[in-house]
């Protein structure tokens, strides 16, 4: 693995998930997604079954990335909070630590203020978990098994047949 890979272990995901559940209950939001800035989905909670979360993660990360460029153009380092308002559903995105984004999808049963309040609290706590994760991945680098690439290679040949 290259050194800056994002490696997430089960116990961390459990902690993150419990934080997200707490956020959803507190803010009465529909669902919460934690997304890497590169566009990888880290975890999700709430009513996400009807959502294409993979695509959503990529687009949210893209949206955040372009907003960051806009921020730079107007002389800001980064906009830490992003909010999209729709007719029924709204999305609140906030920065978590250095490399993740917390996206909360909510509707009119709650208010932006509540979501914002809980999202901020959760983001702070998540940032602590991520700091711990970075420390750990620097100490011991996890690797997928050695024949992973070879096995995957065979599988690729099966799938990508003209």
């Amino acid at each position, binding site marked *: *693995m*290259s*050194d*800056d*890979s*994002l*490696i*997430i*272990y*089960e116990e*961390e*995901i*459990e902690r993150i998930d419990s934080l997200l559940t707490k956020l959803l209950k507190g803010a009465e939001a529909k669902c919460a997604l934690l997304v*890497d*800035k*590169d*566009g*990888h989905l*880290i*975890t999700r909670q709430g009513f996400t079954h009807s959502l*294409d979360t*993979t*695509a959503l993660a*990529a*687009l949210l990360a*893209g949206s955040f*990335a*372009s907003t*960051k*460029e806009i921020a730079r153009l107007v002389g800001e*380092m*980064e906009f830490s909070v992003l909010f999209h308002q729709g007719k029924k559903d709204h999305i609140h995105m906030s920065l978590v*630590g*250095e*490399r993740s984004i917390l996206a909360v999808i909510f509707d009119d049963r709650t208010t932006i203020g509540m979501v914002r309040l809980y999202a901020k609290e959760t983001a702070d706590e998540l940032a602590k978990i991520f700091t711990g994760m970075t420390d750990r991945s620097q100490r011991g*680098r*996890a*690797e*997928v*098994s*050695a*024949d*992973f*690439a070879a*096995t*995957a*290679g065979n*599988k*690729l*040949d099966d*799938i*990508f*047949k*003209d």
Partner: protein
Amino acid sequence: MVSINYATREVSCKIVYYGPGLSGKTTNLQYVHQKVPPSTKGKLISLATDADRTLYFDFLPINIGAINGFAAKFQLYTVPGQVYYNATRKLVLRGVDGLVFVADSQPDKMDENIESLNNLKENLAEYGYDLDEIPIVIQYNKQDLPAVLSPDDLRPVLNRTGWPEFKASATEGFGVFDTLKCILKLVLDKAKTGGVSPSQRSVPSVSAPVQPVPTAVESQPEVRMPAARETVVPHPYEEKPAQPVREPVLETVGQGAVAESTESDGDEYPKATAEANLENPAPQPSPVADIRPVYRPFPGNTREDEEQMSRPSPGTRASTEYVSMSDQIRKPRAEQTAASAGQSDRDKPYAVPESPRMAPPLKAETARKKRSFFKRLFGLK
């Protein structure tokens, strides 16, 4: 960067198709999307203009299923090829694990290929990546067209490093899967071996320490910045011993103005002063910090009156007047009251230091209303 999630047992990699405009990056993805089994692919998302030119990126997730207990997921992205969209193109490269460079084999597109390759190098460098460290495959696309350059012609220009290369036609489909398979294997190999040393892939940190915003109190030394000018022409006000916090700011500006204007022509006095003030605008401390509630029972005297009384010499009159005007423009009314109150000693006993009975701005507003009422009543000017 490869993302490994032990909770969901997933390995996720990001592959980016790069290349000049209209070289066939999106077509590559569309072909893959058409041909792979439905269980493998996700939705192809295209952020494109009305004319079907990629605006931000195309995105195709591919899940090749479980391998040794881990689901291997690949996210295929394309970039907008047009030179104009470099800002968004660069964003897509963030966290890239593998690259496919789609070159246009037509002879007249050679310059665009070279330009795009150089642009790729630059954009990667901005993220701290090196083109030699990232798995990259080059695809000579549009080989189905007549009169195109062969790989032998293209290689010396585009592929001096000896990257794996493939002839392809994205519209007809040959070479597309070969390219994809090759890059996926390279990425997984790299993921296994670890590849690069950390120093080579040190991404510039996104959360660089932000300069702390100076508060009103902290910024005081900076406010006194034109110290050299103070020594050139000492201002009469400097002799005053205990000045309130706000006053040195204004006077310093005034002094700078005096220094400059005396060095230049004396006739253009106010003009030069104005220019000097534009060049050295006084840093604005936060308006809230300085507001002090002031009780003024008979506010007949305006600030101008006080200045008139305390003005020491007619020589500095123009500049002092100017400063007081600019001061009025810049500062809210409440601050002006506070500043002018602090200016003369006789107001000091009336200053309420803490716990005002009314919120400061309200108090100032009340004072202003009272003053204008008395003015009107007694016909004071």
